[in-house]
């Protein structure tokens, strides 16, 4: 059973709770939830590693100039 968020209950539009995004993640045995979680983890790790790389590159540049 799905629960509706309090705001939709408040507005009385319970039928609107089923948005297209919901449909997408509920299909195919919810496998897209797993995909989404992989995307979250991958993008956060990549974001962090790219930032680390930029910082290291900057330090190396400063060192070579000095």
């Amino acid at each position, binding site marked *: 059973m799905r629960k509706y968020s309090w705001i939709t209950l408040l507005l009385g539009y319970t039928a609107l709770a089923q948005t297209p995004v919901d449909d997408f*993640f509920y299909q195919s045995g919810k*496998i897209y939830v*797993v995909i989404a979680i992989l995307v*979250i*983890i991958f993008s*956060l*790790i990549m974001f962090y590693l790219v930032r680390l790389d930029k910082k290291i590159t900057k330090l190396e540049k400063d060192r070579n100039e000095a």
Partner: protein
Amino acid sequence: MPAPDDIGILAKTIRNLHYHVPMWFSMIILLVVSYIYGIKFLSSGNLQHDSMSSSFVKVSMLFGLMGLVTGSFWARFTWGTWWIEDAKLNGAAIGMLIYIAYYILRNSIEDENQRGKFSAVYNLFAFPIYIVLIIIYPRMAETSLHPASGDTIAFSSLDLDNDLRKVFYLAGLGWILLGVWVASLKYRLTELKRIDEEI
């Protein structure tokens, strides 16, 4: 990926066990390393140990954040809500605030030696409280939606033919190693910066 496909509201999302849970494992391992180096710094006063300790806390919170976000997303499509008043969820959120305070504490102290000492002592107390908040308190709670806490059973009881375990142990080890690798990169960067400032 061997895993059962039709476990009630979980359906195929049982596979998230291999991603969401190891985030917390890596986080705890990184915090243990940070704790050990905090104690080492207190006894030696070597600033390398302080860099090690602080870098590992910072990367552990990246993993903690990934654990929270993936957990919230998983909850949306199984429990039907992004967040709920639950011992496990609130314990983890409050626990992470403790380590956010660690950053604030570090940034508020100019002197390196003093910063190291203050944050090592803070870490000394923060870690046990953190473990109580994210593991012991949810387990002792009367009710919880989260598996392995309150009145909800752990996933190990769903894994009847041991298919999940085969992947899960390897995944856990892999994520922990990835965490240690990222944290040691962060440590090397912190050390480079510190040596640059000294010159």
